[in-house]
Each structure stands twice: as C-alpha cells, then as structure tokens.
C-alpha cells in the first residue's frame, strides 16, 4: 500500500535505514487495525453495552461532580466481597500487539537516529511517497521529512509512548474496553508520527487533526459517564477554534509564499518583508492553532477537563506529546516566526501569562490529576516562552525534559490512583480516589512511586541537577538575553517596547517557577506525607503497583534525573556541552541566529546570577511549601469545609469556565435556540420553505379544484372568456 518511491539519491541518508521512514507511522497503524478489529470482534460477541459494563478504574470524574459509583451494580461479580478482575478475552494478544508495535517503532527510530548520527547531514531527508493534492499551483505531496527536529520528536513520541503503553498494560488490565483502549492509543501514535514526520503543513494538519480525534476518543474513553463524554466534546470543540487558526495560516501562507513544504520555506519566505503585516498575521494564526492544541490562554480550558480520560492517556497525550505539538509547530516554523518579532513577542507573552495563570490555579486544586494538568499548562507556557523568544532549542529541550518528568508524574499519579482505587474497590467505598485529601502518607505503602515522583518533582521545580533545571534555566536565560539585545528587544508589541515585554515575561517566568515549586511540593506532601487519611479498612489494601507499571516509572525517573545532560549549558561543563543545540542547529540555527541578532552574549557573571536566582527561587518555593503546609491538618474530602476568599477563586480556576459559559456558550446556545433553531430552522426553513411551499401548492391545488366544478357550463364560460381574451389580444395588437 505504501508505494514508496526511491528517495532522491545523493542524500547521505538515502541508503540507510531511513528509507524505511514510512514504516514508523505504519507500525502503530497496523497495531490500531489489529486492536481495533479485536475490540470490534469482542463487542460483536458480548453485546453493544459491553464498554459501559463497569470498568474498574476510577480516575474519571469531573471536579465537584461528586462520587461516582460506576463499576458497581452492573452485575460485575461483587457479591463475594472480593476483587474479581475481569480480563478481556483478547487481553493477551492486545498486550502483545499494543506495546509491541510501539517498541518496534521505537527500535526503528533508534536505528534511524544512529544512522543519522553516522552521516553529516545539512539538508533534511525528504521521502516522497505519492502525489496527494495536485491542484493548479498547489502541489502537495505525501512526503515524510526526517531531520534532526522530527527525529527528536519521533524519539520522544515512540520512547515515552512505549513506556506508557507498557504502563497501560497494568493500569488498564481489568478494563472491559482493553483492546479499544490500545487501538486508540496506537492510532494516536500513528497520527502523532504523521504530525512530526509530514514534510509540509497540510500533512502536519492531518496528524494535527488526527491526534485531536484520538484525544477526543480517549478523553471520552469511559463515555458512559456524561462528564467524560462532555470533557471529550469540550476538548474537540475548543481545538476547532485553534484549527481554524492553523487553516487560515496555511491559506495565507500559500497565497503569499506559494508553498507549503518545509524544505523550500526558508527560501520562499524571503519574498515577504521582514516583520511585515502578512508574516505577522500568518504567525499569529499559527499561534492561534498552538493555543488550541497546546492549551494556552485563552483556549487552555479543555486540558484540565481532559483529565477525565485514563491516566496513561493524560501522560501520553495531554502531557508528553500531543499538547507539545504547538511547540513543535513553532520550532518547525522558526524561519517564519523569526521574521515576525511582534508575533514572537506575543507567543512569549502569552506563554508567560499562561505559565503564571495556570500555576496559581494549580496551587489550590485538590484533585491530583488536576494539579498535574494545570502544571502541564504552565510548563507548556514555558515552552512557548522559549520558542517565542527564539530559543527554539531550549523550547524543544524543555519539551523533552517535560515529557520525561511530566509523564513520570502522571504515571506516578496513575499508580497512586490505581492503588487508591483498588483499595476503595475492595472495601466498596465510593469515595474520590483522586482527591489528595483522601490520600496522605502513601510513602509507606508505595515507596518506589514516592521516590520516583520526588525525582520528577525536583525536576519540574528546577532543582539542579535534575532535567527541568537545565531546560527551564535555558529558557529564562534566553529571555533575559533577548531583552537586552536582538530584534525582539527593539520591536514593540501594542506600543510596549520589546525589552519591557521580555523583562515582564522573565519576571513572570520566575514567579511561575516559584509557584511551580510550591504546588508540586504541596502535591507531594499531601499525597505521600503526613498521616494517612484513607479509612482503616482501605489502608490494608494499599500497595505498590505491579512491576509492569513501576518499571516504566523507573526508566522515566532516570530520564528525569539525567535528561539535563542532553543539553548542558556552557557554564556547567559536567559533560558534553549543548548536545541538543548542536543536533538541532541545521533546523533552527538560522532562525535562532536571526532572533539573537548581533547582540553579544550576556556576561558570564550575569549568567551565574541568573542561575543562582532561578535555583534560589525553586528552593524558596519548596521551603515555603514545606514550612507552611500542614498535611496533618487535612481531613477527608467529604469532611472538608469549602474554601474561602481568594483560595475559592483559585479552586474554581478563576471562574474562567463559568465566564466562557456565560460569555460564549450560553449566548451561542441562546442565539442557536431562538434565532437559528426557532427562527431560521423552524420558522423560515420549516415554516416558510417546507411547510410554506406545501401550503402554497395546496392552496393552488384548492384553487384549481374550485375551477373543476364538473359543470360543463362553467367550462364553456371559461372557454369563451379565454377566446374573447385571445381574440382581443390579437385584435388590439394590430
């Protein structure tokens, strides 16, 4: 089916394993087909209501929706009072296929990576598959582009993806929708690889939409509960707004530049004036797409709700890969963004504001996954700050380290939820298995998870030498440097000078880092430290997750701890310096240089100060959290009083959802109901056109029927009148 043409000869990768690049997406697609067939086969066998027949995992509920009791009362074999896991009949083969294809893909990706390291390539390796949309001047080929950037993304996606697939084997083992889950997950990886491997924007858009679809499917994986289905719909609809931006950007790009391929974008974009309105508009529309997919202000609202999906999904899609597609998009379009300083400033500012905004909300969330969700939004903001100020490598670097530690955090929380839920399940308690007020003191029961999650927490807080420190510090350092020199500092955003904006972003970044340290420490303390707040009965059931789940955690823990070595700053020569930067240089080097301008580097002393400030802030944040928070004072969720004052505002996420509901959703609904439905549809279309034409025809028929009296005399009269009229017409016409 893949009619792979021979790649252009001459490219150093042409004869290597890279010519099988089309196998990368194909393998997960194959997994999707197999698992999907198994899911369908199972449904056909068991009956259509199977997927809702009570799943065992319990991290699917909306905040404040109360205690859900799904999984009970569905004839699930609880009568004996024991935990009876219900394995899917095809669980075995699915467990082999689902993670298997991912591991194979990862292996292939590693082989390609090695091949890539072995050659010296400046030009990207483009494999033309077939002509896709030849329309006039628009010639879009289905082509894969393998270069340093997409290689990094492929490694992250397949690597983290493999770990999460393996984790899912344990996490989802008792779910009736087991094959369906893996089918969706494989499909997601397929689209994600399409997104990063596509050699042009339209192909990326296919992946972009595809991952959106899979996100929707997986958020609403337990669709029998309305809140989950609604969360999926919300994600889908909010993302459509962003996709609109992506589409408009593509249209404008083609109209003004004439190509949508990455390969000749740099050359073609020279047609546009530097910093002109067109290039700025294109970049801003692209960024609108990013705000949707990567959950930035103002479209971030879907991501916290997306936690309704299974926790590994949150780890893979809503933390490590899909939500970073926006960052990838900007890094991929770095040539364009470097030509539009205003758009870049906007990206940086919005990213910074999102980082701060989400971090404050994260301070007061009780749901362990919601904390992580807002943390993700916040960290995505950091990435956008990075790519916004032209630190494309730093943005991608943070993307990578974030993928490590956030996947670890999510999977760790999944492990915790798994344990909590199993305990509740065993005792038939219907309490909230995700609320931190119901946890506490889990360190004793889950030491491995505890230790690994601390590593991730230190990484995200920015404590050296963990991964997050290096990437975050590089971003903040670049922001500071760009504020001093370069085209960004001289540009103006809505009348505000660029260096003021960037300094603001820098301060916001520091504040966010402080808040990040605080809320992450808070999460860890409430979850693992202090007294245990589960009931007596549950306590005996709390236990570490099986090794198939903790194994991936260990790997991610190592990556979170040592991921920083992938791109060490010059100041800390504890290993090879700037590996990632050198690696990505052929892709983003030109744009980075353009953004850096001719400005000299920040002085070494200043850099040390900046690093010191960043570390100090992280340490201060954690210390404050340790000193002020008292896990012992917490009570179970059901006994907790409602928050007061600003805490309440934070707990309700600044009422943004409510605001959107009042300002957008309800008016749209109102207009739809009164004008579009009752006015246009029922009134004009149904009333006037459909029923109206029927009534008109009927009236006409009635009038005609009145003529048809059956009285010959009447006919004679009419006939004579007609003759008179005709004759009169002839006569007077002369």
């Amino acid at each position, binding site marked *: 089916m893949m009619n792979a043409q021979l790649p252009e000869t001459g490219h150093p990768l042409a004869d290597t394993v890279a010519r099988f690049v089309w196998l990368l997406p194909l393998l997960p697609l194959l997994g999707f087909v197999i698992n999907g067939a198994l899911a369908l086969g199972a449904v056909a066998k068991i009956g259509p209501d199977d997927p809702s027949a009570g799943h065992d995992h319990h991290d699917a509920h909306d905040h404040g929706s109360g205690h859900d009791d799904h999984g009970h009362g569905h004839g699930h074999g609880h009568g004996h009072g024991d935990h009876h896991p219900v394995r899917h009949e095809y669980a075995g083969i699915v467990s082999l296929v689902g993670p298997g294809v991912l591991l194979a893909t990862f292996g292939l990706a590693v082989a390609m990576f090695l091949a890539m390291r072995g050659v010296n390539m400046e030009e990207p390796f483009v494999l033309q598959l077939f002509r896709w949309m030849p329309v006039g001047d628009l010639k879009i080929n289905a082509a894969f582009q393998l270069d340093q950037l997409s290689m990094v993304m492929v490694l992250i996606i397949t690597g983290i993806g493999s770990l999460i697939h393996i984790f899912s084997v344990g996490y989802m083992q008792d779910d009736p929708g087991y094959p369906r889950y893996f089918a969706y997950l494989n499909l997601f990886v397929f689209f994600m690889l399409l997104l990063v491997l596509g050699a042009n924007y339209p192909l990326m858009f296919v992946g972009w939409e595809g991952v959106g679809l899979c996100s929707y499917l997986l958020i609403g994986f337990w669709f029998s509960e309305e809140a989950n289905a609604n969360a999926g719909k919300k994600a889908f609809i909010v993302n459509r707004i962003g996709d609109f931006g992506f589409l408009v950007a593509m249209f404008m790009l083609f109209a003004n530049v004439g190509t949508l391929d990455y390969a000749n974008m740099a050359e073609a974009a020279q047609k546009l004036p530097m910093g002109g309105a067109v290039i700025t508009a294109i970049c801003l529309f692209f960024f609108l797409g990013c705000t949707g997919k990567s959950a930035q202000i103002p479209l971030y609202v879907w991501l916290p709700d997306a936690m309704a999906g299974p926790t590994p999904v949150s780890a893979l899609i809503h933390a490590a890969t899909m939500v970073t597609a926006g960052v990838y998009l900007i890094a991929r379009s770095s040539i364009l963004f470097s030509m539009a300083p205003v758009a870049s400033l906007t990206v940086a500012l919005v990213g910074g504001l999102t980082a701060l905004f989400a971090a404050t909300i994260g301070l007061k969330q009780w749901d362990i996954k919601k904390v992580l969700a807002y943390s993700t939004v916040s960290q995505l903001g950091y990435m956008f700050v990075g790519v916004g100020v032209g630190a494309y490598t730093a943005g991608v670097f943070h993307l990578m380290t974030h993928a490590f530690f956030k996947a670890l955090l999510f999977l760790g929380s999944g492990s915790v939820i798994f344990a909590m839920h199993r305990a509740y399940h065993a005792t038939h308690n219907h309490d909230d298995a995700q609320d931190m007020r119901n946890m506490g003191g889990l360190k004793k029961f889950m030491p491995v998870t505890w230790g690994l999650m601390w590593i991730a927490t230190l990484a995200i807080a920015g404590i050296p030498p963990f991964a997050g420190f290096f990437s975050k510090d590089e971003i903040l350092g670049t922001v500071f440097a760009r504020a001093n020199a370069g085209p960004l500092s001289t540009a103006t955003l809505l009348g505000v000078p660029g260096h003021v904006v960037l300094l603001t972003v820098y301060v916001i970044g520091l504040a966010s880092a402080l808040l990040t340290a605080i809320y992450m420490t808070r999460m860890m303390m409430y979850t693992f430290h202090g007294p245990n707040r589960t009931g007596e009965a549950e306590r005996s059931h709390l236990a570490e997750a099986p090794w198939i789940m903790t194994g991936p955690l260990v790997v991610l823990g190592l990556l979170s701890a040592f991921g920083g070595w992938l791109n060490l700053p010059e100041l800390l020569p504890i290993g090879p310096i700037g590996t990632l930067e050198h690696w990505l240089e052929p892709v983003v080097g030109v744009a980075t240089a353009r953004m850096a301008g001719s400005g000299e580097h920040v002085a070494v002393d200043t850099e040390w100060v900046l690093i010191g400030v960043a570390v100090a802030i992280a340490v201060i944040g954690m210390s404050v959290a340790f000193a002020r928070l008292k896990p012992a004072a917490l009570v179970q969720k059901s006994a907790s009083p409602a928050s007061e004052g600003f805490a309440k505002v934070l707990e309700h996420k600044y009422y943004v959802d409510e605001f959107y509901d009042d300002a957008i959703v309800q008016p749209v609904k109102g207009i739809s109901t009164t004008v579009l439905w009752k006015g246009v549809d029922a009134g004009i279309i149904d009333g006037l056109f459909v029923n109206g034409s029927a009534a008109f025809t009927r009236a006409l028929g009635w009038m005609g029927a009145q003529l048809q009296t059956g009285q010959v005399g009447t006919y004679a009269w009419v006939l*004579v*009148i007609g*003759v008179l009229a005709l*004759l009169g017409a002839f*006569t007077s016409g002369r």
Partner: protein
Amino acid sequence: MQNEFVPLFYGFHFYLFGLIALASAILFVTRKSPVAAALWLVQTMFALAALYIMMDAQFVGVMQILVYAGAIMVVFLFVIMLLNLGHPDEISDIRGTWGRVIAGLFGIALLAEVGAASRNALVPALQLPQAPTDGAINGTAGVIGPIAGPMFKEYLLAFELTSVLLLVAVIGAVVLGKKSSNAR
C-alpha cells in the same frame, strides 16, 4: 366583391334568407322547448342551404339539407323524443337574468372583436379585391367535380381519416348506447 353589381332580385333573396337564418337562430336559442328549438334550428339550416345555393355552392347546399337538416337534426329530434324531453322543464333550462345579460354581452363582444379583426386585416386577403376563380365566375364551382378534385387529391389523407373517424364514432355510439351490463 364589394364593388360588384348585385342584381336586385338576387340581393333581395340574399337578404331575405339571411334574415330568416338570423331570426330563426335567435328564436332557436330562446325557445324553452327543445322540440321547438330544434325545429327553429332546422329552419336556420334551410335558410343557410338557400344561401349556399345562391353562392354557387349547390352541392354543399344540397348536402346541408340532406345531411344536416335531414339526418343530423332528425337524430336530434329523435333523441329528444326518445328521452321525452319534448316539453319544457319545470325549472327553466335558461340561466338567470344576469347570466343572460352577461352572455349577451359576451356575444356582442365576440361580434365586435370578429368585426375588428376583419377590419384590422386579421384575414388580410379580405381587403384585397381579388378576381374570382374561373369556377366561381362561370358558376361551375358548386358542382361536384371541382369539389371532388381536391378532396381526392390534396385531401385524400384527410378524407380517409374522416372515414376512420366515422367508424370510431359509430363504434363509440354503439358502446355508449348499449345498456352496460356491468353498470354499478
């Protein structure tokens, strides 16, 4: 023709038969009794036959008397008698006053329009004083030969079709007149 000299005797009879035809026609439509009406119509036809003969259409005149007055109208009368319609209905079969007035107006309008049409050369040949054909002049036009010629040459197809029409009419009349055995 307008300028043609009309002999007094000829003219007198022409007008006489014309008036008879007109008067009988008026009487025909105003009679309540169908029998009386039919008889007045026969009278009209006789007058018309006389006019035909005066206009050198002897054959047509004879046919008028034989076929129309003799055959068709007799059939009418026969049917009227058969259906016992000879006496006027208790309620008049003539429509009300307004109907009559409007119908009369319609008739006048029709006349006026036809007159206007002829004057406006809707029939353009009328205004051209043309020389009459040989047959018309020498008085042989009305005899059978000149009629039979076109009928069996140019209009042969129409003639044959007429025979088919008559056949269909005969069959139709038989079917309709037959007492239907499957009447509801």
